[in-house]
């Protein structure tokens, strides 16, 4: 068993554990921190698999952007130390069953399935160079169009977020 394998299992365990903490913790701030850690370890996995660029993105956007945003919003909407109310047992049970069943089913399918890797092909290094070339390419396998779409989406999200969050004077009255 090579070191990378061991590291994978360690990372995987950490991802799952912190993921679970995210979901189960009744303190919302702790949940956010667990999420942060979990996502960080996912980034670790990416690094392990040599997709450095994605790992970087993961750290920058998720950890640096999204989680921070979430933590801010937690600050805005919660008093510190406030515990989340307990979920209904029936609801827990139902969603637990569904999740476990789904997991079981998926794992069973995955374990049954025989994956056939592509053979005799030259791997492409997923570095920034190659990614950048293909991203802005408009010939075959070029991603310039999705790239533009994503741009517009981001713009729309930007505008949307502002419109939604903007404070209207009469609404504060209510």
């Amino acid at each position, binding site marked *: 068993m090579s070191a990378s394998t061991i590291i994978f299992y360690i990372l995987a365990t950490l991802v799952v554990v912190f993921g679970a903490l*995210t979901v189960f913790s009744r303190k919302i701030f702790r*949940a956010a921190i667990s999420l942060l850690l979990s996502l960080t370890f996912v980034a670790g996995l*990416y690094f392990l698999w040599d997709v450095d660029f994605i790992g970087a993105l993961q750290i920058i956007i998720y950890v640096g952007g999204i989680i921070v945003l979430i933590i801010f*919003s937690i600050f805005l909407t919660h008093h510190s130390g406030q515990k989340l109310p307990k979920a209904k047992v029936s609801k827990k049970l139902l969603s637990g069953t569904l999740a476990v069943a789904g997991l079981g089913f998926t794992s069973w399918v995955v374990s049954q399935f025989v994956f056939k890797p592509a053979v005799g092909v030259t791997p492409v290094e997923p570095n920034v160079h190659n990614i950048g070339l293909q991203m802005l390419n408009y010939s075959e396998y070029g991603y310039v169009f999705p790239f533009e779409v994503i741009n517009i989406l981001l713009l729309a999200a930007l505008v949307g977020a502002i419109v939604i969050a903007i*404070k209207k004077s009469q609404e504060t009255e209510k």
Partner: protein
Amino acid sequence: MEQVPLSHILILSSTLFFLGVYGFFSRRNLITMLMSVELILNSVNINFIAFNKYLFPHQLEGVFFTMFIIVVAAAEVSISIAIIINLYRRFKTIDIEDTTTMKY
């Protein structure tokens, strides 16, 4: 190089996915639900990368999709947070059980 079997990675990602699903179902707080969604998205990202790496190393599709997903997730979160804050302003709560004005 000896590799981790693909199925293990997939099981990891499904575990993460269903953790997210569980959280999404059982939480009542919008922000925690949002966090669960992030878990789900991440599990998908892991899949994309893993498939790309194991099965189609000559292509970069998985990478691109992961990127797009991350971007979309960012957009989604920003909108969601905006909605959540707006909601909080109006109802002083972000518990989904209590904000039922638009139900039915």
